[in-house]
């Protein structure tokens, strides 16, 4: 058998040949488009202007003068800031509930997987069915509780669109938190819990001093994964409000889509997309460090 050093070119560079095709595809579809995006962002292409002359940093200047963009960022942050803690707390409470033996536990957990694997656009469509002001069951239930017929316009009323979107978001992703935290709680050292029980520690003390630190790495990973997903929230909004009423529920992804594919402000959209990439990269750095910590 030839040793690696003396083999043919293919044998000597085997490990690079294995990564080569994958890297090529990633460069072609992941990196090259971003380089192209950078170029386009310095041009002045719009629906009516097809010239590819460079216009300097005009598009980047426009970023700072576009209130709609910053509102879209704000909407994204608001939805994240409300949905994420709720998902975390609900998921943790549910994980606590399902942690100990319970008749039918395996079936409950298997059912909880279902919302996570539904396509977000389907979940958005489902919730717009549920929230439909006339044919949906939610207004009907509220009507029963209120004792009179209620016509709440969930997709149109400015006060109700956010609760509607956040409800759909929480329904789909609380089970995600639940499953991760359930696994984490199951891995907490039993002997420590028993020792705390023997010492007569209160439930809260045990939870905050032993359980919480033990599951903190998993919680961090879960929060960061969900935070990234929420940052690019698109499907559920598209199904329920399409960013409306007006631009009230436009997230940064919806805004970018509207600018690029409905208003055809090509070069400006390129600048927006790059802004999104830069903002997210900071978040990604953080996630990578944490994922490695947890491994």
């Amino acid at each position, binding site marked *: *058998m030839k040793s690696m050093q003396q083999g043919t070119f293919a044998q000597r560079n*085997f*490990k690079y040949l*294995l*990564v080569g095709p*994958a890297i090529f*595809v*990633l460069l*072609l*579809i992941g990196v090259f*488009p*971003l380089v*192209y995006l950078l170029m386009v962002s310095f041009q002045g292409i719009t629906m009516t202007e097809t010239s590819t002359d460079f216009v300097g940093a005009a598009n980047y200047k426009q970023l700072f003068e576009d209130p709609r963009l910053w509102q879209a960022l704000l909407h994204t942050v608001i939805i994240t800031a409300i949905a994420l803690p709720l998902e975390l707390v609900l998921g943790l409470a*549910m994980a606590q*509930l*399902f942690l100990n033996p*319970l008749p*039918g536990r395996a079936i*409950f957990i*298997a*059912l*909880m*997987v*279902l919302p*996570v*694997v*539904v*396509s*977000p*656009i*389907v979940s958005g*469509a*489902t919730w717009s*069915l*549920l929230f*439909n002001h006339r*044919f949906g069951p939610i207004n*009907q239930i509220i*009507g029963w509780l209120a004792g009179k017929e209620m016509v709440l316009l969930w997709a149109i009323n400015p006060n109700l669109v956010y609760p509607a979107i956040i409800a759909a978001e929480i329904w789909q992703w609380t*089970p995600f938190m639940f499953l*991760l935290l*359930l*696994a984490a709680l199951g891995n907490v050292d039993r002997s420590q819990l028993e020792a705390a029980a023997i010492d007569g520690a209160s439930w809260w003390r045990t939870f905050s001093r032993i359980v919480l630190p033990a599951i903190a790495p*998993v919680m961090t990973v879960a929060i960061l*994964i969900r935070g990234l997903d929420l940052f690019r929230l*698109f*499907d559920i909004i*598209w199904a329920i409000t399409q960013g409306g009423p007006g631009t009230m529920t436009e997230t940064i*992804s919806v805004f970018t*889509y509207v600018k690029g*594919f409905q208003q055809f402000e090509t070069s400006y*959209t390129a600048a927006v*997309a790059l802004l*999104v*990439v830069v903002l*997210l990269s900071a978040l990604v750095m953080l*996630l*990578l460090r944490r*994922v490695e910590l947890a*491994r």
Partner: protein
Amino acid sequence: MTPLARRRAWNLGLRLTAAVLITLIFMFPIYWLFMISFKTAAEIYSFPPKWYPGSFNLDSYLVLFKDGDATTVGNSLVVASFSTALAMFLGFICAYSLARFSTGGNHLANWIVSQRMIPPIAVVFPIFLLYVWFGLVDTYIGVILLYTAFNLPYVIWMMRGYILDVPPALEESALVDGCTRWQVIWRVVLPMCRAGLAATAIFTFVFAWNDFIFALVLTRTEVATYTVQITHYFGGQSNFWGKISAMSVLGTLPIFVVTAFMQRYFVRGISLGAVKG
């Protein structure tokens, strides 16, 4: 019953009630979606809404098949299957190299997984411009290529973890027995991480199958996937609820079936390998 036993029974009863209630709440939207798809048009648009269909009505589905809209589920199947196969092959050999030879060190591994985090809208916009250039919009190749690239980082990251779980001693003994590295990969490593491979393939398939934004931008009529087709039935006040729900069920049921077989690997799969479950 002793007081302690009574308290335990109470406690269990309360927890069970809470568990049943929570599960019912979380299952209700799925029930409603499926239920609507079996209603007649008159039942869908009846007020107050009915909570169960009068009969097991398949009209909404028949319309989808008669109009040919159901072929979009076929499109989803084609693009998700081919992109999964491609991403699994390229990703698996790449992951092997990263896991066994530490090719490129941590930098390469980190760069690859960071590719996964780029927001789809930021990538799909320039890709659309390039696809227009190359005539790849609304083609199978274009969509498959994009899904492959989108899922590659996930496959590489997950498979690297699963391959690291395989003891290297097994490979070394196979090498001593005269196998080449290439043979070792396929005859020793692949069978050893079969389960992880299957779980990762299913996730990859589900990501492509459930995607909306890429398909919305890059397909028109020929390759439109079921998720894009669903949004064609949206229309202000006159949503076609029967079609929306039937199409959603056609797209969702297969996912429920495949994920039922991977419960054990689910948590590891959705946490990017951070939680081994």
